[in-house]
């Protein structure tokens, strides 16, 4: 396991998967990102499929970054959090732009974390970070393994600290994650990642 300061390289995008207990976990993570960060975040949270999601409305006031519900063909913007809409898979396509599908459920889920992670790994490769949080489902384990294989950074919430540990445990069975951390430490890591990114931008500007 690596230390937060040892994050190897530039990260452009973060894909996050959560299920049971996910709203609370995301309420710790997402507000940790400071305004000015250029990161793009994609979030799959398992929810009832038949109801419209209020996630964007819930998280927008808590976050410094822009928060949107994903729409098909939307261009990915820096400094923005995208939530998968209920009953659609969220994928990343070249551009990068967002893509949706109503293909069959994966691990009884649509949106599925695997679908998001695998397509995002294809677009961002080593510039992607994948995070698996609390949940009672196997979804995301295969996707996190793909992110690892394509050179991305993998993070799993420490199962003991998760509201429901099953999803973290099955992710860890498939991938030796780069970081296994309690929620607050993941939030700290995201904050330092964004701060480093802001500092680099600052240095570049001063260098001119």
């Amino acid at each position, binding site marked *: 396991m690596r230390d937060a300061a040892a994050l190897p390289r530039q990260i452009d995008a973060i894909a996050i998967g959560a299920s049971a207990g996910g709203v609370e976990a995301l309420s710790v993570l997402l507000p940790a990102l400071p305004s000015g960060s250029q990161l793009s975040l994609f979030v799959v949270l398992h929810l009832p499929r038949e109801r419209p999601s209020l996630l964007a409305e819930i998280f927008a006031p808590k976050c410094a970054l822009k928060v949107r519900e*994903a*729409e*098909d*063909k*939307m261009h990915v913007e820096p400094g923005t959090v995208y939530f998968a*809409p209920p009953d*659609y*898979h969220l*994928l*990343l*396509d*070249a551009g990068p732009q967002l*893509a*949706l*599908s*109503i*293909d*069959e459920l994966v691990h009884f889920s649509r949106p599925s974390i695997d*679908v998001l992670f*695998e*397509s995002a790994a*294809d*677009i961002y490769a080593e510039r992607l970070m994948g995070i698996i949080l609390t949940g009672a489902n196997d979804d995301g384990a295969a996707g996190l393994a793909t992110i690892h294989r*394509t050179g991305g950074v993998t993070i799993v919430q420490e199962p003991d600290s998760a509201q429901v540990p099953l999803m973290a445990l099955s992710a860890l069975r498939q991938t030796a994650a780069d970081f296994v951390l309690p929620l607050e430490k993941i939030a700290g890591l995201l904050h330092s990642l964004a701060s480093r990114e802001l500092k680099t931008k600052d240095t570049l500007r001063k260098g001119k």
Partner: protein
Amino acid sequence: MAAENTDIELRLLLDAIYLKYHYDFREYAAASLKRRLTNAPGRFGCETLSQLQHKVLYEPAAFAALLSLLTVPVSEMFRDPSYFRSLREKVIPILRTYPSLKIWVAGCSTGEEVYSLAILLREEELLERTLIYATDINPQSLQKAAAGVYAVDRIAGFTENHRKSGGRASLSDYYTAAYGRAVFDKSFKRHIVFSDHSLATDSVFAEVQLVSCRNVLIYFNGDLQNRAVGLFRDALCRKGFLGIGMKESLKFSPHGQSFVELVQGDRIFQKGNEP
């Protein structure tokens, strides 16, 4: 290396399908297509997409099976009930003013949406003067759609959706259940023409007052999406209506400028003035 090869093989497979069978998937949205195709070789007893390409070229039956894997999946009746409620409340009153109606369900798959619209029109007493064109590229889907037979275990969900959509009768009035299957009333078929049509390669075939094409455009890339929206514009009469999927949008398509949004949340558009 392996990932790079997959991208090359995928492109070659799509080229081969187009050259041999004239089905054009080359402008489908790459991410979904790749996801569907990545696991395909195994199902056909092949190890790679290149081997699958060989099989598909030499065995038309293998292509027919692959086509079903590539085309848009099964929907449900009255999916997104609020869409059908908005049609009922905002669009039907205007359609009622036409002496005869033509409606195009583009990418109808196995027909769930077609029967949903036919039921809605019967409840609004418009079906008798309506012709619905139901089109798809997959002949197997069209056959299923024309049969109008669905597994009984799906009916509970359909019934709930129909009720939420503002249905005026019980869904059970429109089908007979036997041997685990629900068979929709044959009388609907007098008003439906099932036909092979590709939004990627074919052109407009009729003038219609309403196009319903939901969760099909998400499987197309930007260029193909724009081509399809152009076809809808050309097929629609002046002030005609277009319904698309709840998370689809016309704002990324240049031809989308020909439309104004009538019901925002439910993604129903009206053809505006010609640009």
